[in-house]
């Protein structure tokens, strides 16, 4: 029971601001944000404003996302777009390197799945760090692994952050904020 509560809370802490104070109750209730066609027009002018204001610092941030899994790529891309980023999504390490090496693309951040076939995230990051001496894109690794040695290896290669999958919206926002702030890009 507790486990389920924790799992559910994980994705939902911020939503409970409207809680009507059922603190004493052991009833488990759930909240959704799916909106009907009727309500959609009402929301057209940003009831999601509460979020979009706090995420406006990411607006226009150019992000390159590399993940070989279709589902994960779509979900992560939507997440980044929700945060205001301009996202280019690719499905292989080679496409990722290719996209970065094109001079006209200047990605500020690369979100990189570590476990891709053919050429994995570690290799991609190593190569990125080798050939771009200026304009280093920030690299955020995505991994299902919780092991310390994975995190250490990422940092040694020169990645800036490691996010554990499945990724949460707040988690992604927090990591972006952190890595941008460190490089003085924070607004």
């Amino acid at each position: 029971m507790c486990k389920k509560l924790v799992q559910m809370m994980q994705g939902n802490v911020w939503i409970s601001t409207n809680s009507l104070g059922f603190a004493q109750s052991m009833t488990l209730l759930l909240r959704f944000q799916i909106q009907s066609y009727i309500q959609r027009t009402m929301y057209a002018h940003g009831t999601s404003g509460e979020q979009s204001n706090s995420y406006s610092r990411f607006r226009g941030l150019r992000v390159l996302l590399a993940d070989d899994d279709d589902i994960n790529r779509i979900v992560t891309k939507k997440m980044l777009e929700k945060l205001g980023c301009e996202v280019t999504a690719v499905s292989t390490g080679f496409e990722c390197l290719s996209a970065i090496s094109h001079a006209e693309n200047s990605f500020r951040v690369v979100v990189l799945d570590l476990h891709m076939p053919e050429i994995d995230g570690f290799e991609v990051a190593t190569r990125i760090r080798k050939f771009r001496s200026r304009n280093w894109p920030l690299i955020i690794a995505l991994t299902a692994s919780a092991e310390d040695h994975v995190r250490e290896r990422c940092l040694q290669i020169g990645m800036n952050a490691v996010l554990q999958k499945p990724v949460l919206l707040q988690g992604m926002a927090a990591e972006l904020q952190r890595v941008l702030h460190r490089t003085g890009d924070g607004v």
Partner: protein
Amino acid sequence: MEVVQIQRNLVDYTKSLFMEGFLDGQFLQLQQLQDESNPDFVAEVVSLFFDDSQKLLNELTIALDQPIVDFKKVDAHVHQLKGSSSSIGAQKVKNACIAFRNFCEVQNIEGCLTCLQQVKLEYYLAKNKFETLFRLEQQIVASGGSIPMIEMGF
């Protein structure tokens, strides 16, 4: 049937899916990503998940049927399935994949075959549940109602 009744059914049904462990918090994350610019996002992603997963399950069946099983390949497929099911909050499918990977690691064919059956079962159950969920939502919207906002309280 009155809209209010369908709405109540949806709420109860969704609660039951969480209580029974079919869905976890990651599904709520998915719903956070849906908005007016992408009103069918959740349904689309879930649908894609089931299409992709079907292919993976087929691949797994073939791979485990080989005279010499390539466990690395099997594990890679299961890892992918685990990742994508995790992303959409399909908890039971994800958990079945975790068990599956353990058997891959020790190269236990019997164990893997049993796990494959389990994953397939969970896949079909989940598919069924999601279809019911989306059907209820469609009914509500078609009747001019709105999807109910339910609070999370402790």
